[in-house]
């Protein structure tokens, strides 16, 4: 390569190295490769060279052009990379900053328990029945074999509303979910399998009683359901609900007006630690029995043809036991701190296939 070309290359390399930004770089590029660039001038002047020399000089110029073009491109890439680095460095943020707050919503533990009950009893073929909170005293008492003089009807237990309904019956706030048994049996043909979760009311207010609370009722009527099925159904439920596959369950004879035979159901626990399962102590958890022949007959079902069982349990009670919630009253207080502590993620509903 001739000296002039070597000089051109050296000058260009120096100029590129000195170009600190894209504007300076572009000046170098135009100065060399532009329409009036130094190299472009050389190429234009090639025609003045003798044909013998032209070939050699042309080849040299083209080589130089390639070299310079790639040097210019390389410098551009380097400058762009440096510029990007500088920009990124300038854009650095404090990643420890708290993100935009999202206030999480929650599902109340009572709703959660009802969902779980629906899932478990649903798997056993039960549907969900509902009824109003304001009931008549026939559905709440009379039809369920609780006669007019029964102590459960006393003012001290039952909330009354003034007046009577269209049939002349007194209006009460239902004291249990059992009137929905009556509604179900008088409106549907057996076989029946329903659970009834819902609000119930009793005139009682202290550390362990609330004037409003929740119960779940169960009713199964078929041609040959026995007390054995009642036991199996409840054992299956309790073990699934509490997630203890060998939960001890005990059945004791008892009395309720609307079932016969009646039994109370205990689960095994440790009285000292509150832990469910072992421990050797028993905790009463629900009442149950075979539906009383009078209740069936009051609802127009012939007990010679149909038989079945019913049960009822307190939703708050099993919720407290399952989650170790010590006190009943906060369930209705809506204290946001309590709700956040015991509430459930709405996007993880109770589903058997995902686990309860």
């Amino acid at each position, binding site marked *: 390569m001739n000296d002039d070309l070597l000089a051109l290359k050296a000058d260009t390399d120096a100029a590129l190295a000195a170009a600190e930004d894209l504007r300076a770089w572009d000046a170098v590029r135009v100065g060399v490769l532009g329409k009036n660039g130094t190299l472009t001038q050389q190429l234009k002047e090639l025609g003045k060279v003798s044909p013998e020399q032209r070939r050699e000089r042309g080849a040299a110029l083209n080589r130089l052009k390639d070299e310079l073009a790639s040097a210019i491109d390389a410098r551009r890439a380097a400058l762009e990379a440096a510029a990007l680095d500088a920009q990124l460095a300038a854009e650095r943020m404090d990643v420890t900053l708290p993100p935009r*707050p*999202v206030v999480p*919503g*929650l*599902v109340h533990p*009572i*709703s959660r328990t009802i969902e779980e009950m*629906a899932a478990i009893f*649903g798997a*056993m*073929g*039960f*549907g969900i029945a509902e009824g*109003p909170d*304001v009931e008549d005293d*026939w559905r709440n008492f009379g*039809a369920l074999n609780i006669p007019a*003089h029964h*102590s459960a009807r006393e*003012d001290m237990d039952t909330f*009354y509303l*003034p007046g009577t309904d269209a*049939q002349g019956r007194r209006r009460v*706030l239902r004291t249990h979910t059992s009137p929905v048994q*009556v509604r179900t049996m008088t409106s549907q043909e057996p076989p029946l399998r329903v659970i009834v979760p819902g*609000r119930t009311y009793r*005139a*009682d207010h202290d550390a362990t009683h609330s*004037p*409003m609370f929740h119960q779940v009722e169960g009713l199964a009527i078929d041609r*040959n359901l*026995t*007390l*054995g*099925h009642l*036991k*199996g*159904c409840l054992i*299956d439920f309790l073990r699934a609900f509490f997630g203890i596959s060998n939960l001890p369950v005990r059945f004791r*004879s*008892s009395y309720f007006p609307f079932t*016969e035979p009646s039994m109370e159901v205990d689960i095994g626990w440790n009285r000292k630690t509150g832990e469910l399962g072992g421990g050797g102590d028993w905790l009463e958890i629900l009442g149950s029995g*075979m539906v009383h*022949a*009078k209740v069936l*007959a*009051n609802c*127009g*079902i*012939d*007990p*010679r043809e149909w*038989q079945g069982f019913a049960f009822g349990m307190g939703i708050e009670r099993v919720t407290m036991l399952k989650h170790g919630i010590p006190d009943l009253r906060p*369930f*209705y207080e*809506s204290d*946001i701190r309590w*709700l956040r502590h015991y509430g459930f993620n*709405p996007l993880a*509903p109770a589903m058997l296939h995902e686990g309860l």
Partner: protein
Amino acid sequence: MKFSLSWLKTHLDTDASLQTITDTLTTIGLELEGVEDRGAALAAFRVAHVVEAVQHPNADRLRACKVDTGNGIVSVVCGAPNARTGMKAVFAPPGSFIPGTGITLKVGEIRGVQSAGMLLSAREMGLGNDHDGIVDLPADAPVGVSYPAWAGLDDPIIDISVTPNRGDALAVRGVARDLAAAGLGTLKPFAPTPVPAAFPSPLQWAITMREACPWVLGRTVRGVRNGASPQWLQDRLLSIGLRPINALVDITNFFTIDLGRPLHVFDAGKVTGSTLTFRPGAGETFRALNGKDYTARPQDCVIADAAGVQSLAGVIGGEATGCDEATTSVFIECALFDPVHVALTGRHHQIISDARQRFERGIDPALLPDAVEAATRLIQELCGGEASEVVSAGAQPAWRRRASLRFARLRDFGGLDVPADAAVGTLERLGFRCVERSPVSVTVEVPSWRNDVAAASPLEPADTLPPERMRKAAEGRNAIEPEADLVEEVLRMRGLDAVPPVSMPAIAPVPPPTLTPRQARSALARRTLAAQGLAECVTFSFMAGSDAALFGDTPDALRLSNPIAADLDQMRPTPVATLARAAQRNATRGWPDVSLFEIGPAYRPDGQLLVAAGLRAGSTPRNWAVAAVDFGAMDAKADVWALLTALGVPLDALTTTPDAPGFYHPGRSGTVRQGPKTVLATFGALHPRVLAALDLAGPAVAFEVYLDAIQDPKRRRKSAPDLPAFQPVRRDFAFVAASSVPAEAVLKAARGAERSLITGVSLFDVYEGNKVGPGLKSLAIEVVFQPREHTLTDAEIEAACAKVVAAVAKATGATLRG
């Protein structure tokens, strides 16, 4: 119901352990409440003889004793000042635990003298606070025997809860009968021999209120000496918490517990006239044995003599004719009362007595003659005297009933296969008498004390179902109920744990949906609102009437007749009301920013509505990136929109009008309707007056969505998706309209300008101010034109835009902003 083990054993011949007895009680439905066994902690202690007690050689305050324990003589160092030679004392051997001090004894040496045991004070045994010295037993106390056994402290007290159907188990004898039937021994016979009549009774019975008192027996015993009861009777009553009064009264209390047969004794000398009459009360006031005055109502059955009311029949006796130490002639009352009358009288006068408790459950109607004889005998035994003839009024009511059991029903209804002989044996031990037996069934006569078995109480049938169906059902009940009673008895005696559990038969390999569409909607609503950042609450259905009135009508029909508290007397008109109180409570606790919701009932005189209600109070959280923003009505509307979207309600078809309920800010609230009538929701800022009344600082916004008003989503296949091949064209328009023009009208008009072409209209700016002039506002919307056949030409776009402008102008009077 409390009784001691020894009392039980006066009726039950058994060698069963206490544990077996108490476990069995729970199993057979006489649930154990507790056992008090004072003797258990004292079992190691023995009666001992202090052979010698001398001054300790090395300690002024101690005595060195030689003690005969009945098992050899040991040396004991004792600090009690009353330890003396020759006394009888209670000895604790080494290794025994001293309840009063919590120490387990060891053989030791105290200042050079061996001490191999301890002489005990009452306090050291946990039997009171007496610590003046060691227990000084009578000289005849037998050396070497168990101290608690000698002192009668080894008799455990058993406490059971008796269900309302088992009046017969409110008697020691009734409990013994059940235990015997369950296989824990045999029931001892009870057949008091009659006491011959020595004279005609000077007092007679009369009944003018047969419905309350069908039958009564009485007898005079004269020449009695009343005084303190003997120790055994006092101990027996004291052991179950009854205070001994005098022998005559104690005898009545004894039979109340022993036989479940309450008795009353009149001091015959205090009765005026010669007739005691069961009659309705007539407003008379009398003083009862508890020292309180009661006024008898016409529905109360009283016992009256010529001077007036002397007793509330079956509930409580009167002071005026009561027996005391001066009584020399006593008249025994042994009556049968109607359970309902006794219950209502006791309830009205708020008297809880052992007599009432038994009469209101019903007592054995056949026991009266035997009970009179047994009572007469015990009176004569304790107080002497001679007995008159037995006088009576009324008659023994018919009580004989039969019940049949098909043995197969034990398996097919009770779930337990019980051999026929075993089943019959159980029934017979319970007192049922077999009157007919075949290979497949048995018919028994129900014992007089079991008024709960085969009781033909009236039905209360539904009045809305066909009479023929009800008649058949009633027949079925007559056939089945007595049999179910017997199944229960046979199972009860075996324990229900004996019944093998059987899982529910599947109704389908895969169960059908558990929830109805309406129920599933509630569940979805709950998850949606929680996902919106609202915390679910469960608040009371009733609230203070004054609070409720802020949120809607408070009709008398929804005010409780007997509220438990003045601030819980009115059924709430909307869950928003109780949520507002919840927000206020949170604010008081220092948490003013809460977003709450509840899915629950709102009450109306004609029924209840299921409402998804929410309330947001305060502001969004403070944060460096986004400033805290006070909640506004649009936040509540956004919650409503999110919920309705989730529930499948097409939002395009809804209208929002500013006519919301009065608890909202009148200018910042709305009602959402589907069609002209169906109200789906309300939302808005709460009225400042409501906030002030609730002492809620605000801002606070709320919403209600009426879940019952939402139609079930139609289950149909989705249509093919609209996926045009051409790019949409977006154009912005700024309209100037009167301030009163609803944005919704502008959006709807634009949307409808060219239905086939316009697929979206959105509002992106609202401006009111100087630049548009007073009474006007600017609404900026983006319209999306979606071509389907070809890319739109400029002319076509122009034409479509012109239609938008014209449609909006026509509908609202708005003009394009210049």
